[in-house]
């Protein structure tokens, strides 16, 4: 076989082994129904498999996968991703395991509702920073913006979130999930 083909497959296997959990967590944070994360993960890795030749080496692979997943999610939110037969077992396991969001404590739901109120890119900058633990230059790579812009948006996101949550979040009432967050154009 061509060594390139073998290397591509090995690289895909390695990336899958190392980054599957990160991608699943990424997806769980951004879908309305936890089991939909299985579709996003399956679709993302299917794209990665088809484009395994394109997967960057070393640590950049996870950022590249986040970038692919971001586009898959955007398509998902537009209703463009058909449910995959792929990942059915994962879907079932998530569905059977993850608690109904309605049973979560009010403070968490209030924070998520506040996140949903942020401008999309600001929200994503904050989530990638805090939930995915990325540095500004890594967030910049995922979103295709400059690190300076990331820092600016991060600062703005924190300020706005603090204003939305307040010092005492209190009962949130009806809470929108992150998935249903505003899709208004960025400012």
């Amino acid at each position, binding site marked *: *076989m*061509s060594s*390139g*083909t*073998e290397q591509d*497959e090995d690289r*895909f*296997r390695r990336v899958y082994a190392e980054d*599957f*959990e990160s991608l*699943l*967590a*990424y997806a*769980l*944070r951004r879908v309305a129904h*936890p089991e939909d994360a299985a579709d996003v*993960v*399956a679709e993302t*890795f*299917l*794209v990665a*498999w*088809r*484009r395994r*030749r*394109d*997967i*960057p080496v070393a640590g950049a692979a996870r950022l590249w996968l986040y*970038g*692919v997943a971001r*586009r898959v999610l955007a*398509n998902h939110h537009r209703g*463009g991703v058909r449910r995959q*037969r*792929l*990942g059915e*077992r*994962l879907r079932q*396991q*998530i569905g059977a*395991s*993850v*608690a109904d*969001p309605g049973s979560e404590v009010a*403070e*968490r*739901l209030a*924070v*998520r509702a506040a*996140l949903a109120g942020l401008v999309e890119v600001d929200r994503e900058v*904050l*989530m990638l*920073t*805090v*939930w995915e633990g990325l540095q500004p230059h890594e967030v910049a790579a995922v979103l295709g913006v400059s690190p300076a812009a990331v820092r600016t948006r991060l600062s703005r996101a*924190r300020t706005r*979130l*603090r204003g939305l*949550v307040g010092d005492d979040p209190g009962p949130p009432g009806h809470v929108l999930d*992150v998935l249903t967050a505003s899709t208004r154009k960025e400012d």
Partner: protein
Amino acid sequence: MTTEERVDRLVRDADPGGLGVVGDLAGVKQALLEEIMSESLVRRAVGMPRRRLWVRRFAGVVTAAAVLVSVVPVSVVVRGQAEGGGVSPIVSAGAGVVFSPLAMEAAQRNPRLLIDRAGWTVAALYGFAEEQGMVRFRRGGRELEMNWYPAYVYADRYSGQLVDGPAKSVRVDGWPADLFQSLSGDFTVLLRPRDNVVVEMKTSGNWSRKDVDRVLADIVRVDARTWLAVLPAEMVMPVRERAARVLVDVSLPPGFDVAALDEIGVSDSYQFGVGVMSRVGCGWIAEWQRARASGDEAGVRRAVEALRGSRGWRVLRDMDRVGDWPEVFWEYADEVAAGTVRPGYVEGLGCR
């Protein structure tokens, strides 16, 4: 704690991505990996039997199937001057060359796109007679792979490419197409469907956009005879002769029909081996099942001994250096020797 840290902590505490509640993921993680690596979009779309995708690995040196019935010197037709003053690699078959009807029929269905520029050669080929296949051209360190699919997968292929950004319109031999560039710099050119076939080209190696444009301008669609004539000489070998080489030390199951191998079509040596040995393996397992069902103990022993001996067959050992298909074969051979075989062998070996 600073204000920033306090906000971050609030957000962190609201993280819905904790995997602790999902349970042990090892099983589903492995299952999804196998699904992805063994199931292509097209295979799902057309309901083709699953076969481990790594049967598609290719040998570095390509030999292919028998399409030429008789050989006379091939006449070279110069189609244009190439870089460095060389001639076009495109030749046309002389009037005395007779291709088999199967090969001609398959070639008629192929996209039959060639790079009309000196130095480009066909490095790999499979699926010649099928609705989904691939031909890979190579020149130095650059490769251009042309995959063809049934036209109805076009929308899926197109949307799959959009993850890398919007398309740019290009033309290939006058036909409209869309050009995409991946994050790593490789290019994909997706042609609009034509004659119920969609072609997707992918570059690998060091390509600039200018390189892509130059090669796209050199791509021409040729007739079936020219397409067959351009294939490397080693691909043009009578099927019987090629099969005889492959089967030289292989025990054949009762009723094995060498003539039926014609339908394997043009392919590189690995894919030809898969086509031949699939029929051998399936034939022996069917014979083993028949003998067991009818109480034919001698027949059972013959099948077990043949399959047990498969680890020594040269064709499988050669293929094993290229890809994993022989390992699948040997898994089922071992099961037969142990007295039971999973029904999945039908898909695993591609039995028809």
